[in-house]
C-alpha cells in the first residue's frame, strides 16, 4: 500500500462559495494521531532546516502522539509567535514539507495541518505559552503590527523586554487582518494570537501614524531599540489607459473593505462596489484571496495572469481551492486597456496574448506580447493584484538608507540608523507571512544581543 498522507476535511466547494467560513476544517484528533504516526522522527530532521523560524517539528509531532497538546504547543511557541497563522498560510510545500524525507517516495508529512491542529487545540483549551520572563527594564518600539512586527514583539517579550507596538490602523495584525480573508484565516484566530502577545505584556497602540504623530527620531530617543516592520503597503497599478475607471480597484482596497471593514457581511457599514464579472489581474496569493472573495460575493470571477499555470506564484493549495470553487483562470494574457463609458464605468477590457520565453537570472520565465493578438473581453470590474511597494510614511524626517527600489537597507537586520532594525516586506519587497516572521524573529535576536 502506498504511504499516503491523511487529508483533512474541507467544506464542499458548492457550499463554501456561498460563505466566508474556513475552507479547511482542520484535523480531528484521530486524523492528527494517524498523520503524526507517519513521521519517522529523523535524528537529523531536514524539515527543521526547511522552516524559516526553525520549529523543532519532530518534537511537536512526538508530543501529539503522546497526546500532550500543551507540550506540543510549547515546542512550537519556542520558535513561532503565530502558530495558528503559520499552519494556515505558510507555503509548506516549498519549505518544511519540501524537505521531508518521506516526500521522496510518497507524500511528505502534513506538517502545516499538524501545526494548525496543535494551535487550535491549544486555543480551545486556553493554554497560553508559559514562557514569560520578568521585565528587564529595556524598552523596544515596534512599528507595524503585521507578521514581522508581531513576531519581533513576541520574541522580545518572552525574554523580558518591554515592547510597545505602533499600528496606524484601528486593529492589529497588518496583512493578517486587512488582507487574508476569513475563509483562509479567520479573524478570531488573529485576535487570539494578538491577545496572547498582550498577555505576554506587549502594549499595542492602534491609530498611531508613525512619521506623522510621532517620528522615528522620537522613537529612537524614547526606546533602547526600534524595529520597523512597516511592510510593503503601497499597491501597484499598471499604468494602462482606463485604470482610473470607477470599477478598477487595488486588491488591497477590495480586501480591506471585505476583511478589515467587514464588507463580507450584509450588515457592513462600509460598502463594497461589486460588478457582475470581474478580472483579477495577477497570480499571487493576494490575487487568489481577492478573486475567491469576490466569487463568494456572487461574481463571475476570473484570474488573468500573463504567464502559465506552472508559474503562478500563489500557494498551490489556494490555486486548487480556487479551481474547485469555479474560478476561471485566463492564462498567458495581459491587459492593455480598460474601456469605459461616459460615466467612467467599465464596459470591457482589451487584453493581449502572451508568449513564454526563456528563464531569466532569477529563474522566472520571460514573457512577450503576441503581436496583433489584442482582443476585447467583457467585464465591469477589474482588480489589480500586481504586488505592492514599500510605504515610507513611517520614515518621514529620517535619513534612513534606502535601496534603489525604495527598500530599507539592512545588515543583519540593522538599518543605517542607530538602534533601528527592520525586517519583512519593508526590507525584502512583497513576500510571504513566514519570511516576515523569520525576519522579525532574527531581528529580535540581534536586538537582544545589541542592547542587553
Amino acid at each position, binding site marked *: 500500500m502506498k504511504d499516503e498522507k491523511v487529508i483533512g476535511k474541507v467544506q464542499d466547494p458548492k457550499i463554501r462559495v456561498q460563505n466566508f467560513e474556513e475552507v479547511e476544517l482542520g484535523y480531528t484528533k484521530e486524523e492528527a494521531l494517524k498523520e503524526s504516526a507517519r513521521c519517522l522522527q529523523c535524528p537529523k530532521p531536514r524539515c527543521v532546516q526547511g522552516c524559516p523560524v526553525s520549529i523543532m517539528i519532530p518534537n511537536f509531532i512526538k508530543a501529539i502522539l503522546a497526546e500532550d497538546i500543551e507540550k506540543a504547543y510549547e515546542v512550537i511557541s519556542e520558535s513561532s509567535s503565530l502558530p495558528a497563522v503559520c499552519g494556515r498560510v505558510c507555503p509548506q510545500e516549498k519549505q518544511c514539507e519540501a524537505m521531508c524525507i518521506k516526500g521522496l517516495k510518497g507524500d511528505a508529512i502534513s506538517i502545516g495541518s499538524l501545526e494548525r491542529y496543535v494551535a487550535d487545540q491549544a486555543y480551545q483549551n486556553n493554554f497560553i505559552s508559559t514562557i514569560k520572563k520578568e521585565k528587564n527594564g529595556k524598552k523596544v518600539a515596534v512599528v507595524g503590527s503585521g507578521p514581522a512586527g508581531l513576531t519581533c514583539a513576541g520574541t522580545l517579550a518572552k525574554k523580558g523586554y518591554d515592547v510597545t507596538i505602533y499600528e*496606524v*490602523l*484601528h486593529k492589529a495584525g497588518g496583512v493578517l487582518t*486587512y488582507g487574508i480573508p476569513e475563509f483562509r484565516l479567520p479573524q478570531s484566530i488573529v485576535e487570539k494570537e494578538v491577545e496572547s502577545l498582550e498577555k505576554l505584556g506587549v502594549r499595542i497602540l*492602534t*491609530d*498611531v*501614524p508613525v512619521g*506623522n*504623530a*510621532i*517620528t522615528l527620531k522620537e522613537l529612537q530617543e524614547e526606546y533602547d531599540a526600534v524595529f520597523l516592520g512597516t511592510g510593503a*503597503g*503601497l*499597491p501597484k*497599478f499598471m499604468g494602462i489607459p482606463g*485604470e*482610473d475607471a*470607477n470599477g478598477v*480597484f*487595488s486588491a*488591497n*482596497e477590495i480586501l*480591506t*473593505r471585505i476583511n478589515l*471593514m*467587514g464588507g463580507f457581511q450584509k450588515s*457592513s*457599514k*462600509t*460598502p*463594497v*462596489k461589486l460588478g457582475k464579472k470581474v478580472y483579477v489581474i495577477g497570480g499571487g496569493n493576494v490575487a487568489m484571496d481577492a478573486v475567491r472573495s469576490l466569487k463568494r460575493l456572487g461574481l463571475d470571477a476570473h484570474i488573468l495572469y500573463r504567464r502559465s499555470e506552472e508559474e503562478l506564484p500563489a500557494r498551490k493549495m489556494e490555486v486548487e481551492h480556487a479551481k474547485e470553487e469555479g474560478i476561471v483562470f485566463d492564462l498567458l494574457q495581459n491587459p492593455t486597456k480598460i474601456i469605459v463609458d461616459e*460615466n*467612467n464605468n467599465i464596459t470591457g477590457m482589451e487584453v493581449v496574448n502572451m508568449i513564454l520565453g526563456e528563464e531569466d537570472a532569477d529563474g522566472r520565465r520571460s514573457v512577450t506580447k503576441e503581436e496583433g493578438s489584442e482582443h476585447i473581453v467583457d467585464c465591469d470590474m477589474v482588480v489589480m493584484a500586481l504586488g505592492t511597494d514599500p*510605504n515610507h*510614511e513611517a520614515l518621514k524626517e529620517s535619513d534612513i538608507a534606502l535601496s534603489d527600489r525604495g527598500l530599507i537597507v539592512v545588515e543583519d537586520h540593522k538599518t543605517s540608523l542607530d538602534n533601528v532594525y527592520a525586517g519583512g516586506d519593508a526590507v525584502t519587497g512583497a513576500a510571504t507571512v513566514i519570511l516576515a516572521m523569520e525576519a522579525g524573529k532574527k531581528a529580535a535576536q540581534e536586538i537582544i544581543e545589541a542592547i542587553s
Partner: protein
Amino acid sequence: MFKVIQNKELVKNCYEMIVEAPMAIQKAIPGQFVIVMAKEDSERIPLTIYDYDKEKGLLYLIYQIVGASTEELSKVKEELFGVVGPLGKPNEICKDPNEYEGKRICYIAGGVGIAPVYPQVKYLKEQGMDIDVIYGVRSANQLIIQKKIEEVAHQMYYTTDDGTFGTKGFVTDVLEKNIKNYDIVVAIGPVIMMKSVSELTKKHNVKTIVSMNPIMVDGSGMCGACRCEVEGKPKFACIDGPEFDGHKVDFDLALKRLNIYKEEEKEKWEDMKTLLQEEVSYEG
C-alpha cells in the same frame, strides 16, 4: 476610545465635534486631516482638522450629514471608537510660511470648505501674514463659524447663490474682480467650485492650491481608493495630498470617481432611516 466633549449642530445638518485626541493633533499642521470611526463596525470617515487645542489635547471637527455614516457620527454622545491622525501632507504655505513672505494670498472656501480654510488662515495670521478670504455658500442660513473666520481674515468677502448675504453669485465672481491683487489662491470646497476657481486662475496665471476630498479607506497609502490624476499621473490624496496644484488636477475624473458608491450609499441610508424610524416607533 476617544472622549467626545461636544457634538452639536451648528446649522441644519452641519455639526461641530470636539474630541480628546492628543496624539492626533500634537504635531498637526493645518492642511492635515484625521480619520474617525464612530463605533467599532463603523465606516472610516476622513475629516479635516479644523481647529485644535494642543495644551488640552482637543481636536475640533466640522462635518456635514451626507449619508448613513455621518448620520451615525451625529448621534455620538460620549466617545468615538477611533481617531487617527494627523494624516496627509500639511498645506505648503503653513509648513514653510517664510518661503511665502510678501506673497499676496487669497483663500476661497465653498460650503463646509470653510472648515479646512479656517485653521490655515488662523495659522498664517499668527505668523504675521494678512490673508483675504472669500467664503461662498448657497444661502445665508448655511454660514458657519463666521465670527471665528472674521477674527483671523484680513479682508473678508461673502457670496451667496441666492443673494441672502454678501455678493449674490459665486466665489469666482468676487475672485475675478480682485484677481490682480493676488499671487496665490488656495481653494477648498466642492470639486466643481475648485474646478471653476482653477480655470479662472489659470487664465490669469495665478498659482492655485486645491484640497481634494476623494473616497478614502485607510488613509495611509494602502488601498489607492483616493487616487486622483495630477498632471496625468495617479496620486494618492491620503499621502501625496490632500492638496495639489489646481492647474494640474483632473477635476472631471475626480467628480466621476466621487460617484462610485452612490447607489450603495443611498441604499445604506435608506436602511438606516428605516431603522431609526423603527426605533422611534418603539420608543413612542
